[in-house]
């Protein structure tokens, strides 16, 4: 009994490369000897239950690592939001922090799902996780640097305006002020 072509193509496309071969084989073996109509339905049902679990199994879910990802991502988003002059005042409200939290959680979820599609080598996964943290920290550092640079620049402009404003203000201006 051959599995339904469309369902098989979807399963092949969705599954991480490291488990395509044996999961497809197991799904096909399960429908051997069944009536064709029952087999087709059984294949789809099995695929619906098995594929998400097979993907989840490839995710290296370590709670400490996930917490670290979340913290780094959260801080990075907060700093980026701080940089934007329009959204800076929003960070004063708890709602904005919750919204940033959603972004951070989304980024971590994408990172975890992406992890399932990486090669199975533990060494590769370890360095990939390190690279991800490094990139987030680097971006955060860059954002901080830019933020401080921007603040220093605006502060300098204010000081310069005050200094030169007073110095070049004519007698008329001083009288009116």
């Amino acid at each position, binding site marked *: 009994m051959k599995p339904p072509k469309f369902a098989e193509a979807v399963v092949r496309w969705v599954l991480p490369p490291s488990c395509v071969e044996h999961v497809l084989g*197991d799904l096909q073996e*399960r429908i051997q000897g069944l009536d064709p109509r029952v087999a087709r339905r059984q294949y789809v049902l099995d695929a619906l239950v098995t594929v998400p679990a097979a993907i989840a*199994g490839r995710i290296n879910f370590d709670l400490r690592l996930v917490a670290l990802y979340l913290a780094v991502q959260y801080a990075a988003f907060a700093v980026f939001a701080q940089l934007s002059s329009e959204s800076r005042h929003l960070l004063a409200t708890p709602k904005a922090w919750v919204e940033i939290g959603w972004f951070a959680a989304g980024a971590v979820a994408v990172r975890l799902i992406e992890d399932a599609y990486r090669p199975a080598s533990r060494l590769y996964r370890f360095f990939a996780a390190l690279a991800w943290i490094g990139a987030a920290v680097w971006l955060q550092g860059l954002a901080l640097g830019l933020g401080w640079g921007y603040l220093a620049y605006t502060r300098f402009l204010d000081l310069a305006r005050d200094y030169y404003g007073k110095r070049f203000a004519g007698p008329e201006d001083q009288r009116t002020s």
Partner: protein
Amino acid sequence: MSKSESCGQFEQLVLTAILTLNDQAYGIPVHKKVQQLSKPKSVTLGAVYVTLDRLENKGMVSSWLSDPTPERGGRSKRYYKVQAAGERALRESAVTARRMWDALSEVTFGRHGRKWGEAWK
């Protein structure tokens, strides 16, 4: 003394299934064996995959792909083998379960005049 990692109840079932199947331990037979062992609870193939991957990450199980077979549409089987860490963890779990069983049967032996668990036979 080496530090051994503990394993959950479902992981113990999967390890037992792999050990009993010996050189025939791949997805489908492991799933069937786990279903037998966990009766009356039903177990999905997906749950077995997740557990096998977790055990492999813990270093308790190793796996390899066989040659393709025609009855599976020319696809390979992924065979599993229990490693020393897995055997150690399973043995420790069995010893703990045995101790628990002895303690419970001692209590119920005194109370009911028969061994605990006989009602399930």
